[in-house]
């Protein structure tokens, strides 16, 4: 059973843990909620479990313990077919994005084709998604000819085309210059305002978190050490590790 407060959340995570090979604990007792239309940023240094958390929420991996409720559905009790139904309402853009070895159009249309979206709607949705990421001119180009920034924006458009309720973004500006980073951050904000999408971002870039987040969670060694609004987290951190991370003094 889920409470009415949980039902209003798009993501409701409680006591989530992930252990690999029965020994390596990557995530431990993670609990948080993300409301509809919110940009929630998980921040922390590299290797603390951010990608694992996003993979669990995207149902690409299975948690060891805890509950993961997405749009009111407890995903830990679903069979393969039911997990697919939940996954089809969301999408993830990975840190090391690889587009399919095909044109930009073929990449963006992929999610629509596998959902058997009627042909007369496909063109409109693809154009809209490409317009949101500012790359409507290049749909005929081959994916291998794109720059790093363009690749990430097309990866976002590829997910946006089928208008997911939840968008998961994993370190998508990690390898980009400041100009491309700014473009991507604008795209993230536009996606929220145009589609009303709930967005969960994982990043090690605290300035980015400040610029785009409604709520921030600081992840360290597989645990959330602080959760709150950006102003509180960055200006009045209560946890010494958060302070050290913000001040660039965190050595671990």
């Amino acid at each position, binding site marked *: 059973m889920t409470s009415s407060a949980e039902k209003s959340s798009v993501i409701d995570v409680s006591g989530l843990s992930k252990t690999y090979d029965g020994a390596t604990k990557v995530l431990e007792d993670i609990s948080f909620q993300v409301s509809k239309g919110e940009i929630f940023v998980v921040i922390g240094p590299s290797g603390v479990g951010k990608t694992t958390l996003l993979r669990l929420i995207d149902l690409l991996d299975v948690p060891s313990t805890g509950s993961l409720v997405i749009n009111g559905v407890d995903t830990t009790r679903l069979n393969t077919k039911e997990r*697919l139904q939940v996954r089809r309402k969301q999408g993830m853009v990975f840190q090391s994005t*690889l587009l*399919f070895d095909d044109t930009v159009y073929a990449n963006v249309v992929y*999610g629509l084709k596998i959902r058997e979206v009627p042909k007369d709607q496909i063109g409109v949705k693809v154009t809209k998604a490409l317009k949101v990421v500012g790359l409507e001119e290049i749909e005929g180009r081959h994916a*291998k000819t794109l720059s*790093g920034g363009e690749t990430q924006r097309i990866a976002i458009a590829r997910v946006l085309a*089928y208008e997911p309720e939840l968008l998961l973004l994993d370190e998508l500006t990690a390898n980009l210059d400041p100009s491309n980073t700014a473009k991507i951050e604008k795209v993230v904000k536009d996606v929220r305002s145009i589609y009303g999408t709930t967005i969960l971002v994982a990043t090690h870039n605290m300035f980015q978190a400040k610029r785009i987040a409604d709520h921030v969670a600081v992840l360290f060694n597989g645990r959330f050490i602080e959760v709150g609004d950006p102003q509180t987290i960055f200006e009045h951190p209560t946890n010494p590790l958060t302070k050290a991370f913000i001040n660039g003094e965190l050595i671990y």
Partner: protein
Amino acid sequence: MSSILDGFLEALSLLFSFNPEIYQIMFMSLYVSGLATLLAAVIGVPLGAYIAMKKFRGREFLRNVTYTMMGLPSVVAGLIIFLLLSRSGPLGMLGLLYTPFAIILAQFLLALPVIAGISISAVSSVPNEIRDAAFSLGADNWQCTVAILKESKMGLITGIITGFSTCLSEVGAAMMVGGNIRFDTRVLSTATVLQAEQGAWGVALALGMILLILVFVINYPLLRLQKKHLKLMKKAVRIE
């Protein structure tokens, strides 16, 4: 050097003389090798993809067996099919020995590990990120498999073309189970051996060249595709 040139000129003259026997041999070669490759591709590509993608008991053993069988000598393949189809063999009652079908079976046995082995490498080389992306975009298992196969298409095509070239150029198996019967089971490779044994070097060389020309014509579309692919890769490297 002059005998090679003579052979080349004789090859051209044989081709343009429209000698019906030469054309019959050419078409027989294409027919048996084409059918053997088609059968081997239908089984070999899914088999290779399965070994590359699925985790199951005995997977490593099966992969090693496939790679080992890629070096199967054509006479050994011929011998296996000969023993199966000979009158005292388990399929002897079918009377298939010394027919084109026997050559197809032997060449299938040669091409199957080649196509499956190259398919294993091609599919294994697709990065995990492609699989993750397909799943994340909402693909089910089958749609994800199709996406991975599409990514490895260059390798899969290379495997099929290599399998076809193996069939077209092998001689031991075709000779052993086909018998090199004129107007029946004679193919380009066995005809070349026959002409060489009879001392007709020019004709033998000409037949060998026709064989090479056929392989080239069949490989050409693949070369074009690879060139296009390499151009894109170079562009991608420049952008990085």
